[in-house]
C-alpha cells in the first residue's frame, strides 16, 4: 500500500522538534506548579487525612 501520509519538510521537522521540547518543558512546569499549589491549598497533611 502506498504511503499517502503527509511528508514533512526538514524545516517543518525542526520546528516540530522545538515545539515538542517547549511543550515538554511546559508540562513539567505544570506538574511542579500543581504539586506546589496542592500543598499550599490543602497543607502538608494532604495525604494523611482519613479516607
Amino acid at each position, binding site marked *: 500500500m502506498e504511503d499517502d501520509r503527509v511528508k514533512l519538510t526538514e524545516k*517543518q521537522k525542526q*520546528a*516540530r522538534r*522545538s515545539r515538542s521540547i517547549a511543550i515538554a518543558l511546559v508540562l513539567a512546569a505544570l506538574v511542579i*506548579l500543581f504539586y506546589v*499549589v496542592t500543598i499550599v491549598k490543602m497543607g502538608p497533611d494532604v495525604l494523611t487525612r482519613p479516607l
Partner: protein
Amino acid sequence: MSLAERHEMMTGQDATWEGGMGSVGDYIALLKPRVMSLVIFTAFVGMMLAPGQLHPVLAGVGLLCIAIGAGASGALNMWYDADIDRIMSRTKKRPIPAGKITPDEALVFGLTLSLGSVLTLGLVVNWFTGAFLAFTILFYVVIYTMWLKRSTPQNIVIGGAAGAFPPIIGWAAVTGNVSLESLILFLIIFMWTPPHFWALALFKSGDYRAAGIPMMPVVAGESSTRTQILAYAVILAPIVVSPYLLGFAGPVYGGVSSALSAVFVALAFNVWRKREGDAARKAAIRLFSYSILYLFLIFALLLGENLLTRMV
C-alpha cells in the same frame, strides 16, 4: 474548507502540508507579549491594592492565568483578524500573515490556552475570578474583535473595557468580589484607551482606511477625533486623581498623578491645536508615546505608595 476536502488535499500526490512551520517564538508572538505585560502589571496592582491576603504562590499562579488568558485573547484576535492584519503595515509581520502559523493552529492554540487559564484560575484562586477571566476573553474576542472592530467607530471605546478588566480580576482574586476601588482602576484604563488609540489612529489612519476598519479618524474625520481626544483627556484627569480623593491612595499619588494628568491634557490640547502637516503628526505620536508612560506611572505610583505604606 470541509474536513473531507482538507483530507483530500493532504493525501494528494505530493502529500505536503502548509502548517507546522511555527517556531516557539512565533507562538509567543501570538500571545501579544507587550499587551500581556501591561495586563500582568495592572492585574498585579489590583491584587496588591485589594484588602485581604492571598498566598504568594496562589497569587503568582493567578497572575500567570490572567497573563495566559490575555495571551489567548491575543491569539484568537490574530486568528480572526488575519485578513486585515495582512493589509496594515503595523500588523503584517504577525505570525499568521507572515505564513508561519496557519489560522487553524492559532485558533486551537488560543482556545486551549483560554480553557486552561480559566479552569486553572477557578480551581486555584476562586471561581468568581475564573468566570470574570472567561468573560473578559469572550468580551475581547466576540464583542470587540468579531463585532465592534469592523462595525463602529466606537469599537475601541466599548472594546477597551476588555483591556480595563485586569485590575478588577486581580482585585477579585484576593477579595472574591468587585468594589468601588477596583471599578476606579477599571475606569482609569477604560477612559485612557480612546485617547491612546485615537492618537495612534491619527498617524496610522491610512492603514485603517486601507483595511476598512471604521476607526474614528476614518469615519468622523481627524478634526472630530482631535476634539474627542481632548474631551476624553479632560474627563480622564479627575478619574486618575480620584483614588487620592476617595482615600485609597496617599498625597504623593494625589500630587504626582495631578501633574502627570496635566501633561496628558496639555499633549492632548497640542494634538487638538496642531492640525496640519508634520507638526500634527508629531503631536499625535508624542501623545501616543506619553500615554503608555502615563498609564504605567499611574499604576506604578499606586503600587509604590501601597508597598511603602505596608512597610511603614
